[in-house]
């Protein structure tokens, strides 16, 4: 197989596999018993995953520490969210704080 052929096959594998996981999750969800307890647990499972995504992407870039600027920026966003600031303020606040710290030389 040529290198170009292998890249095409690799992309096809990644695309098909990713779609299958999205689709399989939805199909599986439709087959599970729909007690209120299960519903609550499944919705909390998504919250758990999303917090884990947020925590790991805040603190790590690959397998290394992401730097003080990003962590402080997200921490500022957390404070804004806790004070019930509008979403736009949270988004812009995180970006502005991180950019400002980097501009001042914080890694």
């Amino acid at each position, binding site marked *: 197989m040529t290198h170009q052929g*292998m890249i095409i*096959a*690799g*992309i096809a*594998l*990644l*695309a098909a*596999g*990713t*779609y299958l*996981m*999205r*689709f*399989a*999750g*939805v*199909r*599986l*969800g*439709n087959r599970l018993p729909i007690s209120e307890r299960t519903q*609550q*647990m499944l*919705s*909390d*499972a*998504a*919250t*758990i*995953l*999303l*917090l*884990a*995504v*947020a*925590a*790991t*992407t805040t*603190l*790590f*870039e690959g397998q290394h520490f*992401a730097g003080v*600027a*990003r962590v402080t*920026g*997200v921490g500022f*966003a*957390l404070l*804004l969210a*806790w004070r019930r600031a*509008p*979403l*736009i303020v*949270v*988004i*812009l*606040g995180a*970006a502005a704080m*991180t*950019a400002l710290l*980097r501009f001042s030389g914080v890694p």
Partner: protein
Amino acid sequence: MFFPQMQLLDKGVIKAIFLVCLADGIVGLSYGSLASADGFPIWVPLALSTLVLAGASEFLFIGIVAGGGSPFTAAAAGLLVNARHLPFGIAVKDLVGKGPSGWFGCHIMNDESVVFGISQPQLAQRRCAYWLCGNGIGFIWPVSVMTGAAIGQFIPDVSVIGLDAVFPAILIALIFPALRQRRARIPATVGALLSLLATPLVPAGMPVLFSLLGLLTWRSRK
């Protein structure tokens, strides 16, 4: 559902979805120009951004292949990063829709569309937010990646404007109300700690899956 009824949504939510799509667009520009700087022909980022539509796994794929790795290794690494879409699919099963539009509804599933979807109060609003964010990113991502790949030389540095902090910030802001309840807060905190501990030790994608162990501490309560 392809054209969600935006009037159902809070104005602040629509603006936030717009900003998140804009941020994704800037990341896409940067990714497209990096892919072309790495010597990839334009159809590689085009195929990845339309058919995979999951940023982190695309970066990984491009990075591994550019570093001389096998495209199959790269695909396997990308699939591991995307494995969280399976539990996401279970959680948003009522938001993606039925039949042919549901098949497309599955494709636009990502961290952002899921978080905007599950954080709305009513089912109609949840569907609408999921589709608006999913369609927005599904459109802007390939377009910006292509634009970046076409421009090539110009590589916007997303860290200068603090964009890397925007994505975790929006996730946290949107799940914050759910975290105010003990029922979700305890397992989510345990899960996040487990995934942080695992990050330096295991391949990308697995730490986030470890967070589901936090469900062991889940109890049905108010």
